């Protein structure tokens, strides 16, 4: 019998530890904040869980969250250590022609933000939910990326986020966690930057990497330039 990992299953469990840790990555226990337990080794996941439980014991007494945060970050970093599928020995470099305080700065993120009423409707599906999106990672990975334009006057209430690849809770709670429009507007008002290019841009980073590298990235650069960008901050999730 195949064990699905469903916690409502009261039959004797034959689930292995590998099945358990893998179930957090688009499985029966999907949790995108801990999906890395599948990417790393079994020892990493086991050690992490043991340490997490130990630190939880301390947390309930001293209320100090910092050790748990550090433990999570370190485990995530170890799980994703090493190069990915793309390696380049060097890359283009362009010096800024004027100080950043005199430059119009664009913002582009891979977070999957968009404006309410202007949903990119992936795969032609209207009102795709976050939960539905997490079941479509293969489709997103093959599809062309779509760049959403977010006017910098867009209110937080009219900003939406959906992404099949990461835990969106923090970004949905406060867009400035990963799409810092409010802070960039303030920095422009204060003269820290010469201007904040409108619109800001966002797309779902889980996408066809080859299409992005070979064609679409250059098209987006042209769009940013047309919007007046002299420099850019890029924020991946």
């Amino acid at each position, binding site marked *: 019998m195949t064990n699905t990992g469903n916690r409502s299953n009261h039959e004797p469990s034959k689930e292995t530890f590998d099945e358990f840790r893998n179930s957090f990555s688009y499985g029966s226990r999907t949790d995108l904040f801990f999906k890395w337990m599948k990417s790393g080794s079994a020892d990493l996941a086991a050690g992490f869980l043991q340490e997490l439980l130990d630190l939880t014991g301390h947390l309930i007494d001293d209320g100090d969250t910092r050790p748990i945060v550090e433990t999570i970050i370190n485990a995530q970093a170890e799980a994703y250590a090493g190069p990915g599928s793309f390696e380049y020995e060097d890359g283009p*470099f362009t010096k800024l022609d004027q100080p950043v305080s005199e430059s119009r700065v664009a913002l582009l993120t891979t977070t999957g933000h968009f404006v309410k009423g202007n949903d990119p409707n992936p795969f032609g599906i209207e009102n795709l939910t976050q939960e539905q999106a997490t079941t479509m990672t293969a489709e997103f990975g093959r599809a062309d990326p779509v760049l959403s334009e977010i006017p910098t006057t867009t209110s937080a209430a009219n900003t939406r986020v959906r992404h099949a690849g990461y835990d969106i809770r923090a970004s949905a709670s406060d867009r400035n966690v990963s799409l810092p429009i409010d802070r960039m507007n303030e*920095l422009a008002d204060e003269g820290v930057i010469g201007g904040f290019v409108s619109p800001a841009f966002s797309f779902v980073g889980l996408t066809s990497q080859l299409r992005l590298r070979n064609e679409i*990235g250059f098209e*987006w650069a042209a769009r940013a330039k047309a919007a007046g960008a002299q420099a850019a901050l*890029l924020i991946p999730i």
Partner: protein
Amino acid sequence: MSVGHVARAFEAAGIPNAIIMSKVFRDRTAAMSPPRVLLTRHPMGRPVSAPFDVEKQRGVLKAGLELLDSATEGGTIIEYEKPYRTGPFDN
């Protein structure tokens, strides 16, 4: 990896850029030789700050912007010193 492709395309098009990202993905991004990277000591999904940590958001963005002014060569990677702070913060 997406951001590495965008960073290279923007830079090649004459738009100097700085990536602000969690250090969790440092190796994968660094392997793509992006022009400038500011790493934050933050968990996945929270590259700039915890929700409503406005002070951190401002500090991280200013550090990223300063990198645009200061970097003299591609592949410049620095780490933002202050660790992730958990809330709650006022909003």
